[in-house]
């Protein structure tokens, strides 16, 4: 009896496992699946976990990677709306959202999918680049630059078509490389060199001009300072002269005496050095040489 029970248990477990294998399937967190049946209907299974099904060949389960995958387009040339060649490479993140459509289009082959995406993004890129002038891709003017808008536009162009035709959702798109054809690069280098030479000349000119300007300004400043000082000096002297004049006002009490002093001083200064003096004997103090003072008041001519 014991053995029977054990056998039944084991048998039950085995049956359960067998049944589970036949009637259940797992969808992993990172997967998306659909179940197709003989009648031709198919059901999409989005949620991860354990799901029921009828055994093969009545129903078949198709599982796909639901994670975002990276796709990088080709680095190829396109013409901008103003006729300039521009090389653009984009990358995008895509994932399978509608597994039936994806399966019908590519039979589950990711390689086929990327090949088709390649064509889709290639034409979208050409179309969008052709709508924008070169200045929308690179510009120092923030108002002119449309880098991000261009990316968005490309995304909008392919998004609905990718969803409809391939059953995939384009999650995001970015320009990963921007360049110019090789021959143009050479021209750009030449232009850059010419630009640099212009800058060199400009800086040289600027240096001299600025130096001259600074020198001139310094000259002006010096002149101003000196002129101001001279003015101040004149003012000081004027003030002093005014003060002196007020002091001299006293002299007006007797101009005759003042005059006399002045003449006396002048004469003394003249006689200070290397002078030859011819005097007659009447001139004091030599008048006394002629004899004792005849008169108490020697005459002095004026």
């Amino acid at each position, binding site marked *: 009896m014991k053995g029977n029970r054990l056998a039944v248990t084991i048998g039950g477990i085995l049956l359960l496992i067998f049944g589970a294998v036949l009637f259940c399937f797992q969808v992993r967190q990172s997967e998306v699946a659909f179940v197709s049946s003989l009648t031709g209907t198919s059901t999409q299974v989005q949620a991860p976990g354990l799901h029921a099904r009828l055994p093969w060949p009545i129903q078949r389960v198709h599982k796909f990677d639901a994670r975002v995958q990276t796709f990088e387009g080709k680095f190829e040339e396109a013409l901008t709306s103003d006729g300039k060649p521009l090389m653009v490479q984009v990358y995008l993140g895509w994932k399978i959202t509608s597994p039936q459509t994806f399966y019908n289009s590519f039979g589950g082959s990711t390689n086929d999918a990327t090949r088709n995406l390649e064509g889709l993004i290639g034409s979208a890129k050409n179309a969008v680049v052709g709508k924008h002038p070169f200045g929308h891709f690179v510009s120092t003017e923030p108002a002119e630059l449309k880098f*991000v808008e261009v990316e968005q536009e490309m995304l909008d162009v392919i998004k609905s078509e990718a969803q409809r035709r391939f059953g995939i959702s384009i999650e995001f798109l970015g320009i990963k490389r921007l360049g110019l054809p090789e021959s143009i690069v050479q021209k750009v280098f030449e232009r850059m060199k010419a630009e640099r030479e212009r800058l060199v000349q400009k800086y040289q000119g600027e240096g001299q001009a600025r130096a001259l300007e600074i020198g001139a300004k310094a000259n002006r400043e010096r002149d101003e300072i000196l002129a101001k000082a001279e003015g101040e000096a004149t003012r000081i002297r004027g003030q002093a002269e005014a003060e002196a004049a007020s002091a001299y006002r006293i002299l007006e009490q007797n101009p005759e005496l003042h005059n006399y002093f002045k003449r006396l001083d002048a004469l003394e200064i003249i006689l200070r050095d290397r*002078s030859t003096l011819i005097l007659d004997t009447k001139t004091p103090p030599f008048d006394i040489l002629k004899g004792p003072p005849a008169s108490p008041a020697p005459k002095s001519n004026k």
Partner: protein
Amino acid sequence: MSQPHDHDHDHGPGGHTHGPGEAHDHDHGPARPPTSDVAVAAAAEAAPAPVSIEDAGSRALDEALRSSFVLVKILMVALVAVFVCSGMFIVDQNEVAVVLRFGQPVGKGEDQLNGPGWHWAWPYPIDEVVRIPRHQVHAVRSTVGWYAVTPEQEKLGKEPDMTGSLNPASDGYALTGDANIMHARATIRYRISDPAAYVFNFTSASNLVENAVNEALHAVAARFTVDGATRTNVAAYRAAVVRRTIELVARQNLGVDVDEANSTVETKVPRQVGDAFKEVSNAELDRSKQINDAQGKASEMVSKAKGEASEIESKARGVASKLVAAARADADSFTQQLPLYQANPKLFRERRFTEMMSRALTNKLDLFLLSDDPDKKRELRLLLNSEPQKPSAGVPGQPQ
């Protein structure tokens, strides 16, 4: 099955002990009839108490089955134990683990992350343990904007040969806002902040981070001038690239945290135009030197002028104070002498004149005295020195 085996074993060792001495026994062993094993067993049982052979046989079978079931039970318990133990797993310090039950994560949000330590999960195919590195710093390097250079050359600091242009297939670069060309590359470091999203939502999140950096390098270069990005405003370019990268990875929900401080962005002008750029920096240096020199000279000139100015002023002040002092002295002496003069003008004048003369005559003077006698007529000849001298011999102020 087990019963005959037991007997075999019992006999085995016995046969061996006797083996070397009696070759006879061995020769006879195989010659026994095939049923002899059971027969011997039955004989052994039968010897103490004679029972029917059928009874003994079923009892033996029963016993054998019972003991074999015990063995199977032990085996099964062991199997279950192994099965259960196989579900144990260890999560390392720098990782977390997510348990998927039938493909679906167990728990929600932060709860689904199992930290370091021992954990248990059902064995496959019920549960699946997914380990995700967490605190580890990851690095992605974007060289899509750099010219082709091998790691060896990089290590030695050697530059690869260059041509007059850049080959789009191998040499990367970025277009700047002023339609020029520069090289730019970056190493961005990040940590995984949302492990579940990082692993379950993307086939290669690190690849997407790298492409975000690629995009940022070009998108930001598109609005910088080549001068700004490579020389004058490198820090701003760097910051903008990192900011754009952060913005992109956040928008794409990559579940990573960019480590801003340890990320590097490098820019360089193309080597084909490097010399021209160097000349510009030299010219700039020259310019600033010229300007500095001029400024030095100017400030020297101004400070010199200031010195001169203060000298002029102080001189003027000196002259002025002298003037005032002299005037005051004159005035003072005038006021003092005026009463004397007024007392006797003639005497005063004569006295002052004589005083002056006596002072003057102490100088070296050639003095000639002429008599004023009207009777004596004399001729006075003056030989004036032809040598130009200070005007002398003047007698202007002489009272006559």
